[in-house]
């Protein structure tokens, strides 16, 4: 075990070494070739200035092209080819997808996730950010609500599977949800297999994780609201709840949109939770899980897998455009 860890550390040293060798080495060469002592080169400074940025950028650009740009192009291409990627089949894969009941189920479930997870995360996030700013133990409260952000989706799935655990109605329940239901005089349920509603029990896990994220961002945004605005409202006799709903929320609408889109992207890619909890059984399939399934099902079908990935991409594009638009606006304002 120690040897394996040593290996990892060696890899770190090696990687740092290679990076340093590249950056320091190219810089050294650049300085040598375009130095003042080199009389054979006219316009040294201009060359130096033109080349240096690219030396800084090349490794990063190389990674971006190999791991993101090229694969995106390739996935688009493969979505028009058959399972091995050899024969062009036009829109056949797309038609297959929309006629496939599993795919339809996944689209439907993804829509449910897209509606409920951002709404609930934002509402709980706003509520806890607002409340935590009013009490002296707010920092501790925020820390605790924020904590699930550090937990992996799989870890969170184990935590919640334990909450949802089901035993027969005649025995003691060890899952807290069923124990609570029985305390209220209800019948215990196998929540995970309860078709349609089980989607919501999976969504709870993501809401549990993302609320902390929303809360932290909102908390910072709420602090940014000028105190005079709130004071003026208080003097006019507005109640705290009115101030929150009528003044604070409209003031941070931009931030709410940013949080909303960030969570939306996470929701679109949701995979681990569904894989760990149900693997798409009992009508809980989602796109990312279905895509993963088709990557390996029957030796892997790159055409169908790519089509499913494209669906996620299509949904992301509006957000991408909006982000770029916002970025441009900000740059102009600088």
């Amino acid at each position: 075990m120690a040897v394996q860890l040593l290996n990892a550390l060696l890899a770190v040293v090696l990687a740092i070494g290679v990076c340093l060798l590249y950056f320091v080495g190219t810089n050294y060469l650049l300085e040598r070739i375009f130095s003042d002592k080199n009389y054979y080169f006219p316009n040294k400074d201009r060359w130096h200035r033109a080349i240096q940025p690219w030396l800084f950028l090349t490794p990063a650009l190389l990674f971006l092209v190999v791991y993101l740009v090229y694969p995106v192009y390739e996935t688009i291409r493969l979505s028009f080819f058959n399972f091995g990627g050899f024969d062009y089949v036009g829109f056949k894969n797309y038609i297959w997808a929309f006629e496939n009941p599993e795919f339809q189920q996944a689209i439907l479930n993804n829509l449910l996730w897209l509606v409920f997870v951002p709404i609930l995360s934002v509402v709980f996030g706003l509520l806890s950010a607002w409340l935590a700013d009013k009490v002296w133990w707010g920092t501790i409260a925020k820390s605790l609500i924020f904590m699930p952000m550090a937990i992996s989706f799989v870890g969170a799935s184990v935590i919640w599977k334990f909450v949802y655990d089901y035993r027969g109605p005649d025995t003691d329940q060890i899952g807290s949800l069923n124990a609570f239901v029985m305390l209220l005089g209800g019948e215990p349920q196998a929540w995970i297999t309860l078709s349609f509603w089980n989607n919501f029990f999976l969504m709870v896990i993501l809401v549990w994780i993302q609320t902390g994220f929303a809360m932290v961002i909102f908390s910072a945004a709420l602090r940014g609201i000028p105190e005079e605005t709130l004071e003026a409202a208080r003097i006019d006799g507005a109640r705290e709840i009115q101030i929150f709903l009528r003044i604070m929320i409209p003031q941070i609408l931009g931030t709410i949109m940013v949080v909303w889109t960030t969570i939306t992207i996470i929701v679109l890619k949701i995979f681990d939770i569904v894989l760990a909890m149900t693997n798409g059984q009992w009508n809980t399939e989602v796109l990312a899980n279905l895509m993963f399934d088709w990557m390996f099902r029957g030796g892997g079908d790159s055409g169908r897998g790519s089509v499913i990935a494209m669906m996620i991409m299509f949904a992301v594009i509006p957000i991408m455009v909006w982000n770029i638009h916002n970025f441009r606006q900000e740059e102009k304002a600088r």
Partner: protein
Amino acid sequence: MISLYRKTFNFGQILSSMLLLFLVLLWIMPTLGLFISSFRDKDQLALTGWWTALSTTERNEFRRTGTRKDQIERDGKYIISGNLFKKGGKTIQTFSTNFRNLTKYKAGVTAQFKDGSLFILHENGEYEWVSNHPFKHKRGKRIFYVANVAPAFSLDNYREVLAAEGVGQSFINTLRVTIPATVIPIMIASFAAYAFAWMEFSGRQFLFVSVVGLLVVPLQMSLIPLLSMYNEIGKFFGVTAKSYPGIWLAHTGFGLPLAIYLLRNYMGSLPREIIESARIDGATHFQIFTRLVLPLSVPALASFCIFQFLWVWNDLLVALVFLGKKDDEIVLTSKLRELLGSRGDNWEILTSSAFISIIIPLIVFFTLQRYFVRGLVTGSVKS
């Protein structure tokens, strides 16, 4: 009027506190349940809820006595003795030979069975069965009892998963993936970020806008082409397609857009005068970057490091695609998923494994929360 205002305000204050307390309890309860359960005795864990962990519970069970082989002869009497329990923690209240009447005999009081034999069962499970005739039964007699079970906590579950279930090895594997996959991107990204922030070159705007676009490209778009690319490369060089260097590079590629974006925004917000006066003093870009900008960017570097560390540690998808499932490759998240499938009802294994997988992120999170929050807030809050 003023006093009325103060009164409602206080009432609001109490209401806020209560509501927040409720939210906090709701949020920590699931994790707390897992944490407490992972230390509980596995028999107790399977039978009672974690919220009863501290209370003594009453349980109805049965055990068998020794058989005729265990009997000894002393003073013309035949005796079977022993202890019903292998380990302690239970206190017997009453017992019986019939499950319908569990309170028939009291613990510690000698009972006379129908065949005339005398049976005494002590609270700690020790018994002595005395008869005038030799015992003939091949199977032990069933003794039904009502026992109080004291709460039992131990590290047994952890010991079991770390060694027998291979979670310890997975922990090492996760570390092996995470450390290089956090360090490599930060170096590459900081150089690129500096170029985007402070160097003049054509196409700068276009390239950075592309990075902003790549920020949201779903991982799913990369998986199929990269998987076949890795397979091709593996075949070409005659090596395995799934390897540690492979996953380090993949995580580097996927982490770069965020790294470049965060670092460029931070470096770009450093005061222009510092960089320009250094330029005037004759410093090269390389010197400015390594001696001035990099040390000043430590907070941003730290927040990206935490992001990347948590993301890689908690990742399942990339590990499933780019790394194998052999003992020396399977990472914690992947291991945990396998355990969910194969040991779905063994909560003592699942709870302790899950806790092992989340403990490092939680430590990182709580000690470095400040940097983490700062990184999150940068770029998210609109002024």
